[in-house]
């Protein structure tokens, strides 16, 4: 998994997950330090399942299955040693571990091309709305002779995974309502796609921003914009929630 985090820039945020999870667990220590340990035999069953998955992973299934086996193993150990109460208390950190899992190739391959085309269309539409002369050929945009390609790395998957992770963490830190984490995670999807399209449109219209440090800076700036949009969405949700309960 560590190699995956280092080598796959889509999953580079995964390296932070093992740091965030202990911090959250430590932050939640008041909830679990006084819990009585009640080991469960179901933990062995989960460990057995994890072992099988790991076996299958080694046989053919690949890295994703192996990583799932690892998460299951941790869950099995917690269940064996602490019992189901510990597992419930640490459920959120366990869910965060999903963000450290490698990409599932089947899903990733199916999703990237539509995302590329979607980002290209949205960017072309934005530029067209802005009065630019745009030619789009599939995932290639031509703006005044400046041509860019919305390749896999531009599909928005990075924004989606990173922003999804940040949305969940933001919801955990900013809101006590558990459903808000799911709501912000769901909101992160359109926000990430829209932000990525903005990034592509700006890169296409300003040639100097299509590569190098300025391009990376643009990517970071747009991500900040995503976070701002998340904050706005969060407030909208809270406002709506407050009105609903009033």
């Amino acid at each position: 998994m560590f190699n995956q985090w280092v080598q796959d820039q889509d999953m580079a945020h995964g390296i932070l997950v093992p740091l965030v999870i202990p911090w959250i667990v430590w932050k939640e220590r008041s909830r679990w330090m006084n819990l009585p340990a009640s080991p469960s035999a179901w933990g062995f069953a989960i460990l057995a399942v994890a072992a099988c998955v790991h076996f299958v992973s080694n046989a053919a299934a690949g890295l994703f299955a192996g990583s799932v086996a690892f998460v299951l193993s941790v869950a099995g150990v917690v269940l064996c040693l602490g019992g189901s109460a510990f597992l419930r208390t640490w459920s959120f950190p366990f869910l965060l571990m999903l963000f450290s899992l490698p990409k599932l190739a089947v899903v990733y391959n199916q999703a990237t091309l539509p995302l590329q085309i979607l980002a290209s269309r949205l960017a072309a539409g934005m530029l067209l709305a802005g009065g630019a002369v745009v030619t789009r050929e599939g995932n290639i945009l031509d703006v005044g002779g400046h041509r860019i390609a919305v390749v896999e790395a531009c599909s928005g998957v990075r924004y989606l995974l990173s922003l999804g992770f940040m949305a969940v963490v933001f919801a955990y830190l900013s809101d006590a309502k558990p459903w808000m984490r799911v709501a912000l995670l769901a909101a992160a999807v359109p926000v990430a796609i829209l932000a990525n399209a903005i990034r592509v449109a700006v890169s296409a219209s300003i040639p100097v921003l299509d590569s190098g440090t300025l391009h990376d800076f643009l990517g970071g700036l747009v991500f900040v914009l995503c976070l701002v949009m998340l904050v706005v969405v969060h407030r909208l949700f809270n406002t709506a929630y407050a009105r609903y309960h009033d």
Partner: protein
Amino acid sequence: MKNLCSFLLYITLCAGLQAAQLPVTLGSASTFTILAASTVTNTGPSVINGEVGVSPGTALVGFPPGSVTGGSLHAADGPASAAQGSLTSAYNDAAGRVVPAVVAGDLGGLTLAPGLYKSTSSLGITGVLRLDGQGDSNSVFIFQVASALTTASGSQVMLQGGARAANIFWQVGSSATLGTNSLFNGTIMAQASVSLLTGAALNGRALARTAAVTLDSNTIVNPGPPTVGIPPAPLTITCPLSSAQTGIAYNSVITATGGVPPYAFLITGLLPPGLSLSPITGTLSGTPTAAGTFTFVANVLDNTATSASSTCSIAISTPVIPPATPSLTCPANTAQAGVAYNSSIAATGGRPPYSFSITGSLPQGLSLNASTGAIAGSPTVAGSSIFTANVLDSTPVSSSIACTITTSAAESTGPPTPPGGGGTTPPGGGGTTPPSPVPAPSSLPLVLIGFACLALYHSRERARQFFKRS
């Protein structure tokens, strides 16, 4: 009517041909072009070829401006005196010839055969008098004029059929006058005087027995001694050009030399198809229609019925026509991205079938059918593609043409292309510029940025709550 009369007179004269005359013997007078008894008077820049003399008189006036070439001036010297003696003999010889044909009045417009002619009074020439030697270069003409001989201004005595000025003699009973700018042939032997008016030209002699010779800006050439019995040069014939090509005009002449002109040409055998002969000029002309080597005999017949012949051949070849070069027409020069394009490189001429090829690049999405020249497909990129269309026919001869296909942007993705190519034409033309990938930054820095922002956000929230409590 006048022509008819002249023709009838000519027939009459020819019918009554006299016995052939011998030339008048001029003796020592033959070298004198001008000979007078009293004076020779010249006005203007006369040019005289031969001796100029006067005897027994001594006056030679007007030299210069008159000039003498091929001789000198003789004033009552021995040669001049001897010449006068010879002139007397010659005059008497001419006057004593017998059985003449009678002529009278004006000889202008007549054509006379060789012989002796006599006028019992004066004789005039207005217009053109033709003396026809009838193919005999030794033919002799002797005119006996009882009194004056006068030629009109601009009149001419023309020679043809081998007649020569050296064998023409005019015996004039009184005086002879050649009109202004007239042309005269023959030796004038005048009893009294001879006058050449302004500009008159004389190919002969002006010999006056008892009086003067008067000149005015004249050209006088001594024709030399009379010729007797000199055979003509052998008649020869030369073949025309021996090569020709079908479909290309041919024009050459069968040349005859020697003999006695005029000539008559005829061919024995077959001429190359398409060529024909002019029997008078010997010109062989036309456009050959068949290839091959054609052998024939060219014959020529001169005025004395002497013939000559030569075996000639003309090789007719088929011209080597360079193979025609096929010409090309470019395909339709406009296309639209995303819209089906179907056009062709059209070839004409040359020798089908053709083979087409492209040098350079077609717009992306289009392809060439090398057999038909069809270019079809759906362009994917806006821009202009400049390429060279080539064709090779079965000769094989190749031909090329520079073509351009300009692909406009797809209608659904942008406003119309502005003039000058607008913003849809990639630099370098024609969609060949590779697009730049615009990858998103790695997710690690993104999440780090996210955490930094999160920290700032919560710091701000905490600070706000702190100040609120305070």
